[in-house]
């Protein structure tokens, strides 16, 4: 009668479970942080985080042990997809960023926007796994957490991270 149980679950009214809400409160800031390192915009990062949690809600139980790892990986991949399609469209966000934050010194703001654009472009051009690895590490994840999120062996993280940094250097300075 598993099918009947599944039918009942599918027919249940939508709503968030306590487990999902707890997971959301615990992991949302970190998921936003990962996305923001890639999209370089706080509002857009929150949009990415929303999509990631909705995708998780659809497909996974909130009490799954792998939930944080899944969310971190999904945040990185979703944000990378977003900047890649933007890079393809060739849109530059410099002006947009300047207008958004008038309180900041215009000179400094322009420099920051420039470096944001550079980082985005570099990450967008990099191999996806390498880009995700770099971002997760700089978002404060441990080697164990990165290994779990990206499905890698713990022992290979150091080497792969070194290569990812080399690739990032090449892309930024090219």
């Amino acid at each position: 009668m598993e099918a009947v149980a599944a039918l009942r679950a599918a027919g249940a009214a939508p709503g968030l479970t306590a487990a999902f809400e707890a997971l959301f409160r615990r992991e949302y800031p970190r998921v936003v942080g990962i996305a923001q390192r890639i999209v370089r915009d706080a509002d857009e990062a929150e949009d990415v985080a929303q999509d990631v949690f909705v995708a998780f809600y659809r497909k996974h139980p909130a009490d799954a042990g792998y939930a944080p790892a899944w969310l971190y990986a999904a945040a990185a991949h979703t944000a990378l997809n977003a900047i890649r399609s933007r890079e393809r469209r060739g849109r530059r966000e410099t002006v947009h960023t300047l207008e958004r934050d008038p309180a900041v010194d215009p000179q400094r703001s322009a420099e920051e926007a420039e470096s944001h654009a550079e980082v985005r472009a570099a990450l967008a051009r990099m191999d996806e796994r390498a880009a995700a690895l770099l971002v997760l590490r700089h978002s404060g994840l441990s080697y164990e957490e990165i290994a779990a999120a990206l499905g890698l062996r713990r022992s290979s993280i150091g080497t792969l991270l070194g290569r990812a940094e080399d690739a990032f250097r090449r892309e930024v300075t090219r």
Partner: protein
Amino acid sequence: MSEHDIERLMTVAERPVDSESALARIRERIERERIQPINRTVAGRERGRRDGAVVSLWIKGLAAAASVALIATLLTVSGVAETIITLFEPKTVVAVPITSADLTGAAGLTAYGTLTWSSPPKPYDVPDIATAEKATGMKVLVPSQLPSGVSVANARYGVMDRTTATYTFSADKTRAAAALLNRTAPPMPANIDGSKLFITGGPAVVQYFDDGTAPKSATSAGAFASLPRLIIAQGKGPLVQSDGVTVEQLQQYLLAQPGITPALAAQIRAIKDPSSTLPVPIPVDMATSKTVTVQGVQGVFVGDSTGLGSAVIWSKDGYVFGVAGTLTESQILAVANSLH
């Protein structure tokens, strides 16, 4: 550029996030879009995982797709009654948008009878395309174009031999299942009760490409990362035969089930040539679809509404093809059109 420079570039001014507002926003979205969770607890999933523990990752996806197609196929059977007749053999594909309500009804396949595998799917890995072709007797199409980051060097190949199953309709099971849902099923016509459908699928070959990150085990923690970057499947389409049930009656009966919405029934009836059209069910709240031309024939493109993945499915020369992955529409179509 020093490590310090990388550190500086990777640092962003994180503003404090308001998790409660964000939670309210997601709650509102889930209610507005009526987004359904697939499973609410780990316990439910673990059961599924145990069942499929020996099944490698790619075949799980294939099996899921096949079972959905099977449900839709059963709903579209049509033909001429003979002793053993071919009810369904796909020559083309069409998208059938379904809602959560439709899924609730259609998922009740096991509620109408019993599916028995006479030759269950036993996927196995092979080292290369040549071995796959030898094992299946199929000419396997391979891509001449791969998106950046995807390499033939990281490809794995799987084969599923021809599989067969028998589905036996049962009036008792139907009544019991309907009762559990507090519904009353329309009476099953006597000639459907106990009648059999013979379902044949495969052989099939799956080419599985990842960028080196996908874990070999489906139980690995990185569930998202375990999605294949690119998967190319080619197989003999499902063939459904009957031992003589009046199939117009079967269609009429199945479409009259309480779980089947009138909208879904109308869409299925509208399929011009149901005996050779493979319906691809598209959950409207999770995915979008459109008709595309691929390899010169009509195909269905499916985009995950989260933008995380896409797929294209078509039928040509007696085979059903599927290309899917965490790629964009143009990337997926480029790979599909490059198959030769």
